[in-house]
């Protein structure tokens, strides 16, 4: 469904060039729920922006349903991390959800049904005529999810969607996404920096190294579905998997992180070598 091949993204050029994504390849099958987890500042958002066609990669390519991505593809929707800057404050909830459907060739009543259904499935039927800023943060992110669903994409990308809501809301939203994903039969690629979340949500977890990002490991998550906030997280397998991801990320962060964040050019090349070995081995 979604195929990322040797994706690389460098910002700027010459001396000031910074490499955000070094080399990332992975695949997502139809109907799968894949999480991308990596340390903060690992270039996850850059990765998502190139995958969604908002930004051209420096090299490598992204394919969706067999077609190369050169701009935002029709089969893809994206839920941004910052709902307060992604929802349009001058549109009511229903209008926000309906906005991407403007140019789809469907009748008015059909559009209305789609919008109502999407808003209903995120539990906001009674708020359809409110403005986003009249809602709590968690509810606003529900609106953004409803908008993504109403667009009826084959792939739903989510960029740390629950990073700015409180823990309880977060758990609710996690379960909401797992539910609507079944209802809509959508493939989900979910980016997060939260290790527990990645294991809890995903069928597979793609573990990224620190900046510039590479794929450190792809982990199968064999936990039974439906997942449950209490029961799933009680399982010894869950604890085992999250520990595994945790170690992988810690390992990814240690030497290479120190190299990539600061220091002038000379010591950088010297110190980069053991880090490079580590990644290769």
């Amino acid at each position: 469904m979604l195929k990322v091949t040797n994706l690389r993204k460098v910002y700027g050029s010459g001396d000031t060039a910074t490499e955000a994504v070094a080399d990332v390849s992975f695949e997502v099958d139809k109907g799968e729920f894949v999480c991308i987890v990596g340390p903060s500042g690992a270039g996850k958002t850059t990765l998502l922006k190139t995958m969604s066609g908002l930004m051209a990669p420096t090299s490598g390519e992204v394919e969706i349903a067999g077609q190369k991505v050169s701009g935002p593809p029709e089969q893809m929707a994206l839920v941004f991390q910052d709902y307060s800057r992604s929802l349009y404050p001058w549109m009511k909830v229903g209008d926000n959800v309906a906005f991407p459907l403007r140019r789809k060739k469907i009748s008015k009543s059909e559009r209305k049904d789609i919008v109502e259904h999407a808003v209903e499935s995120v539990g906001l039927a009674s708020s359809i005529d409110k403005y986003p800023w009249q809602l709590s943060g968690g509810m606003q992110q529900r609106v953004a999810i409803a908008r993504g669903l109403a667009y009826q994409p084959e792939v739903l990308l989510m960029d740390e969607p629950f990073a700015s809501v409180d823990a309880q809301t977060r758990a609710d939203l996690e379960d909401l996404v797992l539910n609507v994903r079944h209802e809509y039969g959508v493939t989900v690629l979910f980016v997060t920096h939260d290790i527990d979340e990645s294991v809890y949500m995903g069928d597979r977890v793609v573990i990224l190294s620190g900046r510039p990002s590479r794929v450190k490991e792809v982990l199968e998550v064999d936990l039974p579905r439906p997942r449950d906030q209490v029961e799933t997280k009680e399982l010894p397998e869950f604890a085992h998997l999250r520990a595994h991801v945790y170690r992988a990320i810690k390992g990814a962060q240690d030497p290479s992180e120190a190299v990539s964040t600061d220091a002038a050019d000379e010591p950088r090349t010297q110190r980069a070598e053991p880090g490079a070995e580590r990644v290769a081995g």
Partner: protein
Amino acid sequence: MSRRATLAAVEIAVPVVVIAAIWFWSAGSDVYYYPPLSDVLKTFKDTWLFDRVGSDVIPSLIRLFFGYFIAVGVGVAGGIALGMSPVLRRVAAPIVEFLRAIPAPALLPFALLVLGVGNDSKIFVIAFVCLWPVLLNAVDGVAGVDPTLVDTGRVYRIPASDRLRYVVLPAAAPQIFAGMRTSLSLALILMVISEMVASSNGIGYFVLQSQRSFAIPEMWSGIILLGLLGYVFNAGFLLVERRVLAWYRGSRAGAE
């Protein structure tokens, strides 16, 4: 009485007290330049209700609004173009800064020469002055639109024309309105100035003409009318702004 009611009462009481004070202070006035307010108001009634409305007020308002709305149209369109293109913005910056720095009344002689003493030259000068606040605010507003808002539109494949109309323009609207409000008061000022330089009608012309013919109460009545017009324009503008930008006020209140 609630705090709000008290405030409203004071808000009304103060002007009433001021007017009463002027009334009594000027009542026995025999200073030629400060005729009694009662005389001025009587003249006001005789002149502006509605004797000279057709001959002076309407021509003035036509100039003002034509000039103003031309400026708003050009300013918003130009602001969008410059706001969306950093290159264009850079290239245009010196020209904009220079034109903006020209005191508009200095252009009046030129305008009279080229466009004649009719409405065109006055509309030109009003539009020229009103353009800059609208343009510069629109540029800032459009350039400062949150990239996430635009990216959201792009991800959902909203065509560029729709993104402009439904995303960029509303997002920049608060700043555009700020510029439009500044321009509205400038429009009134330039209307008066342009009518004082070369005109055969209009409120500005009337004020100057009254002064020259020593019709002091008439002069004052024209000044009062101009003040009232400015007040009404601003109040009307705020009313429209409050409606159009209701979402903005709401979202700001929520954020605080």
